[in-house]
């Protein structure tokens, strides 16, 4: 089964879930405010899931992601709080923002580089080294913060997690993107029916986005970052040599190696990028919470893995897509948000979420099995 038809089914499932939740919550779910919040909640898991897609595609795993988010968040928080940027204004405040963001990303990047180095140089199983790193980074976050929250962070910095692109600009972006997509889809050599379908999709999707974000405060900044990174990640995977190499390495490392794929550099690069993305998420999370918590990001790695797997990427590697993972992240986010709105007790939420993840993957595997048997 190809990824397009999979994603189409995923979208349908998401839409059905949305309609269902609309009625179950007496319309609260579909309010512009709630949907905006939903996307902002999804953004962090979505960014992590995008990176995790690559990691899983090459047959790896990164369990350290959640702890790295916390550690990097703490570094951002320290710069903001301890170096006194929280009350800064003007150029000083901007310096604080870039410093916090830069250090946070750099910390994540170095940790990712270390993971990748241990995996490629010393051939330690990714599961083991990132499990170790998960504990180490969590400990480091607790040490650096003395176990306490670092807050408040500066207002300008907090924009990164809480701010919005103004409504006018949001509507303009929606319009431009829709126009670009329409032109692209008209120029593609598709059958009339497919063309109509894709145009409908663009109009519906773009219209919905414009309606939701236009009716509230505009695009949240984390959502913009998520959108840009997801598009970039999807493009690299499906349209560049690097993407082809990633799929080849996951599909058969021996064959990839003999065909000249630089498997070591690629592996190193992917774990490093995963770390940098976790660093970025650490900064966003700190900004959203107006402070850094050493206990933040707990189980983020598992949410990211779940999104990737729900999105149809094989844990064996070699097959999958970024768009699937994005859908998976939205599915998990919608579940979390919907269940909270319905005031389902948190303990039950966990059980329901777990069951649905297992169910989704099971159904998908079964479908794949049937497709393979037919062929």
């Amino acid at each position, binding site marked *: 089964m190809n990824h397009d038809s999979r994603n189409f089914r995923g979208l349908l499932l998401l839409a059905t879930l949305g309609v269902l939740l609309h009625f179950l919550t007496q319309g609260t779910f579909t309010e512009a405010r709630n949907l905006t919040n939903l996307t902002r909640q999804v953004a962090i898991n979505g960014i992590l899931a995008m990176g995790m897609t690559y990691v899983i595609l090459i047959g790896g795993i990164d369990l350290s992601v959640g702890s790295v988010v916390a550690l990097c968040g703490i570094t951002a928080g320290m710069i903001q709080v301890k170096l006194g940027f929280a009350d800064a204004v003007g150029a000083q405040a901007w310096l604080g923002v870039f410093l916090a963001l830069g250090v946070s990303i750099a910390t994540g990047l170095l940790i990712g580089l270390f993971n990748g180095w241990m995996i490629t140089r010393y051939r330690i199983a990714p599961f083991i080294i990132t499990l170790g790193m998960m504990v180490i980074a969590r400990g480091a976050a607790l040490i650096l913060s003395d176990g306490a929250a670092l807050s408040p962070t500066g207002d300008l910095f907090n924009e990164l997690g809480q701010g919005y692109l103004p409504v006018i600009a949001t509507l303009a972006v929606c319009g431009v993107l829709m126009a670009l997509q329409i032109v692209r889809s008209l120029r593609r050599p598709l059958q009339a029916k497919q063309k109509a379908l894709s145009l409908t999709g663009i109009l519906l999707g773009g219209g919905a986005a414009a309606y939701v974000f236009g009716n509230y405060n505009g695009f949240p900044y984390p959502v913009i970052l998520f959108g840009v990174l997801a598009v970039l990640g999807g493009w690299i995977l499906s349209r*560049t040599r690097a993407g*082809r190499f990633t799929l080849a390495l996951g*599909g058969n490392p021996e064959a990839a*190696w003999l065909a000249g*794929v630089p498997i070591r550099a690629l592996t190193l690069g992917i774990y490093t990028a995963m770390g940098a993305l976790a660093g970025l998420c650490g900064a966003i999370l700190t900004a959203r919470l107006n402070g850094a918590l050493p206990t933040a990001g707990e189980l983020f790695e598992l949410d990211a893995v779940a999104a990737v797997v729900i999105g149809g990427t094989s844990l064996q590697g*070699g097959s999958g897509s970024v768009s699937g993972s994005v859908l998976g992240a939205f599915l998990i986010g919608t579940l979390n948000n919907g269940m909270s709105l319905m005031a389902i007790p948190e303990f039950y939420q966990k059980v329901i979420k777990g069951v649905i993840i297992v169910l989704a993957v099971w159904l998908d595997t079964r479908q794949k099995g049937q497709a393979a048997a037919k062929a």
Partner: protein
Amino acid sequence: MTDSLQPDLLRMRAIIKDFPGTRALDGVDLELRAGEVLALMGENGAGKSTLMKILSGVWPSGSFAGEILRDGKPVSFEDTRNAHRAGIAMIHQELALFPELTVAEHLVLDQLPAVIDWDPIYRECQTFLDRLDFGLRADQVVKTLSIGSRQLVEIARALYRNAAIIVFDEPTSALSEKEVLKLYSIIRKLKSEGRGILYITHRMDEVFELADRVLVLRDGKSVAAFDRTERMERKELEPRLVAAMVGREIKDVFPLKNEPSKETVLHVQGLSLTRPNGRKRVHEIDFEVHAGEVLGFAGLLGSGRSEILESLFGYYHADGPKGSGFKVEGRVKVAGREFKIGRPVDSLRAGMAFLSEDRKGSGLMLGQSILANLSLARLSKQEGSSLVPLRAQDESERSRRWITDLRVRCTDPKQPIGHLSGGNQQKVVLAKWLETEPKVIFLDEPTRGVDIGAKAEIYQWIQKLASQGMGVVLVSSELPELIGLAHRILVLREGRISAEIPLKKEWGADIQERILEAASL
């Protein structure tokens, strides 16, 4: 004819087995009597292994059509244990043993009680082994044994279960001369005890040494059966066997050879490969390949044929899946230019290509499309940033062209390659390497697991590449293939070249024997 009083030890009747896209077995009949050796012959892909997998319960009943009779009674196997219980034992080509376990543990593995008292077990096994006189000790750990002794462990295991039917799958391919003779005498003994032996082989010598009857499979059908008790002369029988296996005279399968040029495309001097444990697998080998020449490598399994190509191509580089620890040395010139052995990508860029022996293991990404498989090597040969966008149009045109040129049977370049037959998969792998426009191409068992039709096409292509001036190094276990295609054969033994045999236009009838002699001595 079946003895009317005593039913056959084993009968397989009208066996049909389908795989996606291919029919592996098409109504095969087989009968085996007590106290005989039945040789099962056929080219790779003829269906021998599939038939044996059905017999040993790997393919359970229901996954194929036809019936199996054991002592005249129909049986059906759900799994391999059922087959064991029916007295059927397989001696696998790639031995199915556990390296860390002892000989005794192998013997009793499938009949262990919940709580084990090892001492009496070891004593009992030792008594059993002494009676067999294989020279095995019950407490030896399998990984410390030679290949020949490991095979004896498998045989001992079959006998310990008191198997009535023992299947040998090309048992001598990795054995030394001495071990082969020992195996022959063991098989004769088993036969005299009234067991039925199914003996899969490619080698004529073995057939004439051991077999009472011969069954030949081709393209999933039983095409011929010969009874050796009818005293047919070897001279008379051998050509008929070959013709039955190949389906036509060998001469017609192979294209005419071209005249290679004087120009050298690959020059190798002092190539050696040392394993991490310090053992040398390839010992200072020198050879050269001329433009337009097909150079054949002959030798037994483990003689270092593949390792030479792998070393040259960069498979053992520290960045690769084998990790650091291997040492490759040697001076190499490709098309006259000095080349430093590095990673596979360096070899690609220098103009080499390497179709590896194990198509599924190191040739293909089975889950991915024809197109993705086909363009991979060309993409990594390109230099520059790997974030530059692909040219989808160009890529799809290229793969369509290869599909037409090589006559790959498929519906679309986007089709998963796992859905194709072995022959078509192999054509895609060949296309993958030809896409890189190499000056010299290494082909390691290019026709393994490939049906006869595709085989002939691959032969034509090898010849075509040579006549276009490419240098070809061909490794093959099938001597007719080497003789039919190569201009020159280097015979390898234990990592060294033991003979060089030119094959310009004429060669003697004893050519196969000369090669085998140089390979095994």
